[in-house]
């Protein structure tokens, strides 16, 4: 219920901000406003390129690996006091595999941003 209320309240605030500019603001149009903003220079190419660097995709994959690892780690951290030694050994083995993956990506050059 609290989550619902706060969503309602925050959405109210953000929508009022969203529409306030349309309600209160002036409306003046001119031709240069219709162009993409590039510091007043004529745009060199009209189309935005559709393809992007594959590096970003690799970073996203790494993020997925580590976020799933985080989902394993949080319950592990909470239950750690039940049997510290066993949990510690398990975590060393698990982290060794995960760090292996990170170092593999590192050595393959996935973390290197070329110039």
């Amino acid at each position, binding site marked *: 219920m609290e989550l619902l209320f*706060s969503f309602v309240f925050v959405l109210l605030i953000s929508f009022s901000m969203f529409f306030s500019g349309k309600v209160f603001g002036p409306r003046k149009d001119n031709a240069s406003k219709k162009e993409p903003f590039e510091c007043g220079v004529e745009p060199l190419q009209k189309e935005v390129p559709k393809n*992007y660097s594959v590096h970003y995709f690799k970073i996203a994959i790494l993020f997925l690996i580590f976020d799933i690892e985080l989902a394993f780690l949080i319950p592990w951290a909470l239950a*750690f006091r039940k049997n510290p030694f066993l949990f510690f050994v398990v975590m060393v083995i698990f982290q060794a595999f995960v760090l292996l993956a990170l170092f593999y990506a590192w050595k393959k050059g996935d973390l*290197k*941003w070329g110039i």
Partner: protein
Amino acid sequence: MEWVIAVAVKVIVIFTWALLTVLYITLLERKESAVIQDRIGANRASILGLRLNGFFQPYADALKMFFKEDYTPPFVDKPFYYLAPLVSIVFALIPVGAVPVADSIGLFGRKFPLSVIGSNVGVVLILSLLSLAVYGVIFGGYGSRNKYGVLGGMRGTAQAISYEVAIGLSLVGVLMVFPSLDLNEIVHLQNRYILGGWVPLWGIFLQPLAAVLFLIAGMAENKRVPFDIPEGESEIIGYFLEYSGMKFGMFFVADFVEILLLAALFTTFFLGGYNLPWLFTEGFHFPWGGSLAMSPIIVRIVQFVTFNIKLWIMIWFLLLVRWTYPRYRFDQLMDLGWKSLVPLSIFNILITAAVMVVIR
């Protein structure tokens, strides 16, 4: 029914407090930059000739923003373009509600937490909402259909998701020391004392490395100056390049709400939250033997004031960092994230685990 009204009042009061704090963060930022650059800073806004050294400036700024033209360029991708500012402000504000500003009180025979979302999975809630805030960046960049906007959105997304890993992994160390997902419970566990009752058991003393990692990663997640490659005011402006009027204002407010959120989370996890040293629910118990009884309401008020003082110290520190350091390069930024912060936070988890095994 009374319960529903109480919850509604709580939601309105706490979010109003958060938004007022955000307004004054903008003023503090202008004043602090002015001091650093040897200026006086904003002090012109007045009510009835009363200036109070810029006290009314944030309201004037907000009003001015309301009366600016809100122009939608014809080439944008409309759904994404409209969704982006909404997403960024909503998912920046909601996690602020999960932070407890004072200890919970009893109301109508039930426990009434003094945070908007007194959830028992607060940490997971905050982490998940923070991940959703990335969509504001990528929608804004992609929806603008501007080359620099797309570039800023890409960089912003890569940066945000890289540093989110470090934030989450550094919090795991804290969760091991204070085994609870409830933020109020974590703050409670920090109200214990060691060394004969002189040193409070705050997160920063138990997890110093995690505190540093959390602070750095949080600042990077915030996308402000040492890490402001996605925005880069002098280069590519960033993912909100095509926004004007109050839609840009929403990105701006979301930015400052994230400062508030980072300061509040750091206070909660590492600086003992609302705890004043030696203040318990029934009053002070000093280590030198004295004690001072106080009524529960007074204790809550003292806790709220303490929380605000710690919060402003953290905000002051964050703004100081923003006005002191130059910008990183993008490859240095990603190196810092993946090659130092992530291995260090995993190292921190293993060290914490080893120490806990030895102590046990």
